[in-house]
């Protein structure tokens, strides 16, 4: 974590967008919402982090080599196309695009999962993937 969340918010308020958007901190937020339920002023910090993540990806300023934004984008693409996420293929694509060396470590847990009957290599897909695509297009047009 390069900045504390407090500092990220201060950077945004003072207009240092580039610093706030290219930091690692926002990608360490796992969306557990602990801050949101504890904040006495009711500030939805998790949603603020989401906003910064979106903006960072839109401006392509997210830290390079960090797997989290890669995972988010691959996940998005996979579901956009098939309507479901297939864990095995998603993790594989993420590793290949961010840190191929991680495959060594992933292979170890993959093997354990395989032995326990928890690793499915099937590609999950919904029947009406075209319906979903129509919906995304309609939402983009607005109303």
């Amino acid at each position, binding site marked *: 974590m390069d900045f504390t969340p407090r500092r990220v918010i201060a950077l945004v308020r003072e207009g240092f967008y580039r610093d706030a958007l290219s930091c690692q901190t926002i990608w360490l937020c796992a*969306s557990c919402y*602990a801050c949101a339920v504890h904040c006495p002023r009711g500030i939805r910090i998790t949603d603020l982090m989401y906003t910064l993540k979106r903006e960072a990806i839109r401006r392509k300023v997210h830290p390079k080599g960090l*797997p989290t934004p890669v995972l988010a984008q691959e996940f998005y693409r996979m579901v956009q196309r098939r309507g479901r996420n297939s864990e095995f293929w998603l993790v594989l694509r993420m590793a290949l695009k961010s840190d191929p060396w991680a495959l060594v470590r992933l292979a170890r847990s993959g093997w354990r999962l395989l032995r*326990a*009957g*928890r690793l499915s290599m099937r590609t999950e897909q919904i029947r009406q993937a075209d319906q979903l695509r129509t*919906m995304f297009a309609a939402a983009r047009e*607005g109303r």
Partner: protein
Amino acid sequence: MALRRYLYYPGCSLRGTGVAYDESLRECFRQLGLELVELEDWNCCGATSYMAIDEGAACVLSARVLALAQQQAPGVDLVAPCSACYLVLRKTEDYISRYPEIRSRVEASLRKAGLPVQIGVQVRHPLEVLWEDVGPEAIRKRVQRHWRGGRVACYYGCQAVRPYGEVDRPIRPTRLDELMEAVNVPVVDYSLRTRCCGGSLTGTIHEVGLRLNYILLKEAVRRGAEAIVTMCPLCQFNLDVFQNEMERQTGEPFDLPVLYFTQVLGWCLGAELEKLGLRHLIAGRDLVERWFVKERPVEAYV
């Protein structure tokens, strides 16, 4: 007990790494006379990734799930066992009612797809269903087997009990503990019960994810727990799969079974052993095999 019917939204995890949750949930509900009908052609909820890319698309995605539920069985509650699915679906309902901009986008997309635009689906977590629709007292009366395992730490995780949920209160929830006590499973006072497991961080920024789970496991052991009971596929995955690796890195032995609450409950209620998905567990195999045995029902020797 009258047969109650629910729509069931397994979500992507329960099709893969969380298959034990799917199997044990179905069996546990069957034992209690609760019927689960799988939602037809359900899609992914978008989890935490979609919100990080496109807010509108994230809401459209979960709105399709809600609209399918509305179309296939109006007025029937939708059970979402994965905490991420549960939170995302409820958050979407909240966003649709709160923000007109999102509402108009979602409605446009539903209309285009020929799906119902008016959505009034109640999204519920299985723990919430068991607590409210069956109740700990009724569950206590149906106990068929004496728990022969050790003390457990009940781990609620994050998203199910956070801002959009009604599973339990967000700070120091107790329902899972009380449900375990109802079936005579001893629990320890686990103060980290709602601390985050890191979610997908174990897959992305591995050292960070590993550290979060190390803290959770270490504290459970220190409190005297011999196993952890979870209610989310991602929590179970993180706590279960990396114990070997933690042992290698820290030199401290970790071999705790990480169970789904539906596995423990199902066993105590007399479920068939093969249907609880126990073979999918990775850590603490010895204990799992010692604890979960085919035992004669309590009545047989009392």
